[in-house]
C-alpha cells in the first residue's frame, strides 16, 4: 500500500515510447493495478463496515474496535423478529415487483411501436419520456402528496407501484427502443411470410432477440424501486406500510439505535442488488444517457 502511494506520482511522467507493449506485469502495470485495487477497496469499505457492524453482538456496539470479539450471525435472523422491518421488506418486495411488471407491460408496446414505426408525435413522445426522466420525484413531492391524498390512496401499495413505475418508464423505453431498433425488420417480415401474424412475429422473433434489453430494463427498474426512499417516506404514513428504506430511516430516529440490526437489514437489502447490478452494468449508462446520443 505504501509503495503504491509513493510511486504513483511518478507513473504518468515516466516516458512511454514506441508501440504499446502488450506484456503484462511491467512496473507501470503494477502501479496502475495497485491504485485501482486500492480504490476498489475504498468503494467497498462502507459496505464491508456495514457487514462487520451487522455481525456485532449488541453489547459491543459502543466498543472502539475495528472488529468485534466474535461474530453474532443470529443478528441476521433476529432483526426480522425484533423489529417491524419484516413488514417493510414485504412492502419493498411488492412495490419493486409490481413496478417492474407494470413498467414492462407499458414500455414494451410503446418501445416496439416507436422503434418500428414512424408516426406523428413520435418525437413528442420521446421528448415527453426524456423530460419524465429529468423530473425526479423529489421535485414533485408535495404535488404527489396532495394528489394521492385527494385520491385517498396514501398508504396504498398501489400508489408506490404506480409512482415507481412512472418514474422508471423512461429508462425502459430508451433501452428497449434501442434494442428493438437494432433488430432487422426483415427477420419479422420473414416470420410473417412463414405464416405468423405481427403479434406472433413480435413475441416469437423480436422479443427473444431483444432479451438483453428487457433484462436490463427489468433489473434496473427493480433496483431503483427497491432503493426508492423519498416517495415511500412521503406517500406512506403508517409505519408497517412503508418500504424498507423508510423503515431503516425510522430506526435512526430512535433514542438508542440498534445499529447491528439496522445494518443486518441493510446488508440483506444491498448485497443482492449489487450482484444484480453487475449483470446489467454495461448497458445502464446507455439507458441513462440515451437522450443525448439520439
Amino acid at each position: 500500500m505504501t509503495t503504491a502511494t509513493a510511486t504513483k506520482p511518478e507513473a504518468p511522467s515516466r516516458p512511454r515510447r514506441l508501440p504499446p507493449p502488450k506484456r503484462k506485469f511491467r512496473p507501470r502495470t503494477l502501479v496502475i493495478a495497485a491504485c485501482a485495487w486500492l480504490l476498489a477497496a475504498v468503494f467497498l469499505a462502507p459496505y464491508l463496515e456495514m457487514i462487520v457492524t451487522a455481525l456485532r453482538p449488541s453489547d459491543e456496539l459502543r466498543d472502539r474496535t475495528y472488529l468485534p470479539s466474535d461474530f453474532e450471525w443470529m443478528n441476521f435472523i433476529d432483526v426480522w423478529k425484533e423489529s417491524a422491518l419484516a413488514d417493510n421488506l414485504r412492502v419493498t418486495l411488492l412495490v419493486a415487483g409490481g413496478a417492474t411488471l407494470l413498467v414492462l407491460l407499458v414500455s414494451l408496446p410503446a418501445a416496439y411501436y416507436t422503434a418500428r414505426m414512424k408516426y406523428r408525435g413520435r418525437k413528442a413522445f420521446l421528448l415527453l419520456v426524456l423530460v419524465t426522466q429529468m423530473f425526479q420525484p423529489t421535485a414533485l413531492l408535495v404535488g404527489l402528496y396532495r394528489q394521492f391524498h385527494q385520491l385517498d390512496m396514501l398508504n396504498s401499495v398501489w400508489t408506490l407501484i404506480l409512482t415507481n413505475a412512472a418514474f422508471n418508464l423512461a429508462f425502459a423505453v430508451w433501452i428497449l427502443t434501442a434494442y428493438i431498433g437494432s433488430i432487422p425488420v426483415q427477420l419479422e417480415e420473414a416470420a410473417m411470410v412463414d405464416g405468423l401474424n405481427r403479434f406472433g412475429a413480435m413475441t416469437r422473433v423480436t422479443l427473444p432477440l431483444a432479451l438483453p434489453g428487457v433484462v436490463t430494463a427489468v433489473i434496473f427498474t427493480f433496483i431503483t424501486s427497491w432503493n426508492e426512499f423519498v416517495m415511500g417516506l412521503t406517500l406512506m404514513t403508517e409505519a408497517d406500510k412503508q418500504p424498507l428504506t423508510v423503515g431503516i430511516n425510522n430506526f435512526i430516529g430512535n433514542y438508542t439505535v440498534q445499529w447491528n440490526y439496522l445494518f443486518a437489514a441493510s446488508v440483506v437489502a444491498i448485497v443482492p442488488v449489487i450482484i444484480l447490478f453487475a449483470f446489467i452494468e454495461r448497458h445502464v449508462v446507455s439507458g441513462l444517457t440515451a437522450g443525448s446520443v439520439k
Partner: protein
Amino acid sequence: MPDQAPVSPASRSRGPGGRRGAPGRRRGPAGLGPLPWIAPAVLLIFAVVIWPIVELIRTSFLNISIAGVVRGSAGFDKYSKLFDDSSFAGVLIWTVVWTLVVVSATMLISLALAQLFNQRFPGRRIARWALIAPWAASVLMTAVGFKWMLNQTAGVLNTLMLDLGLIDHSKDWLGTPGTAWPWMMVVAVFVSLPFTTYTLLAGLQTIPEDVYEAARIDGAGSWQTYTGITLPMLRPAFLVGVVINLINVFNSFPIIWAMTRGGPGSDTATTTVFMFQLKETDIAESAAMSVVNFGMVVVLVLVFLKVSGWNKEEDA
C-alpha cells in the same frame, strides 16, 4: 411558462394526429395507429408526473390547515412568506454551494478514475465491479452507513483518524454545520462517482485507437495527448455527465435527510430538505418552495436538452 413545454407536445402525440398520420406510411398493426401502443405509457406519465406538477402549482396558491383542509385561496401570500423566511436565503446559498462543489468534485475525480480504469491491468473486471457498489446500493442506506462510521462514540472513521493521529479526540462531525457539510458532500460525491466514471469510460471507448497512434508518431507526450486529444473528444460524455449530475445533486434528498435531517434548524438544509421541513408546518409554503425548486429543475432540463441537441431536427 416553461413547465408547460412537456404538456403541449405530448397531448399531440396521443390526440387524433396519431390516428390520422399513421396510415399511408406503413401498415399499422390493427390499423389503429400508435394509440393502443403508446397510450398506456402516456397515460401513466400524465397520471403520475404531469398531474402532480399541476397539483403542486395549485397548492402553492392555497391556504391549507395542518390537518389538510383547504381554507380558500392565498394568492401569492405563501411565496412572500417563503421569501421572508429567515432561513430561506441561507438555504438557497447552501444549495448552490452544495450543487457546485459536489458536481465539480465528482467530475474531476471521475476523469481521473475513468483514465485509471480504462488501463489494462490484471483483475480489471473485478475492480470495476467494486466501483458500482455505491451506485447499486440504496443512497439512503449508504448515507446511514456513513452516519454510523462518523458516530462519536464508536464510529470507525473517528477511530481510524484517532489511531492515525489526525485528530486528538473523537468528534461529533455531524453535530455542527461546519463539519457536517463537508462530510455530506463527501458522501454525495461518493455515490455520484460510479455513474459519472462509467459515463466517461463509455466516452473514452468511443475515441478510436488510431488517433492515439497518430499522436504518438507525432511525438506527443502523454500529458499533451491527454489535453490535446482525450479531453476534447471526451467533451460530449463530460457534458452529459455534468448536466445529469447537476439535476441529481440538486434534487438530492436522502443523504442530508439521513445524516442531519437538515438541522440544527435548517442550517444544513438544501431547498429539497427545506421543502420537506416546511411540509410539516405549512404544506402550501412547502409547495411554494417546491415550485421555486421545480423552476430551477426546468432550467437545468432545458440546459440538458440544449446540450444534448434535442432542438435539432430528428434524423432517425
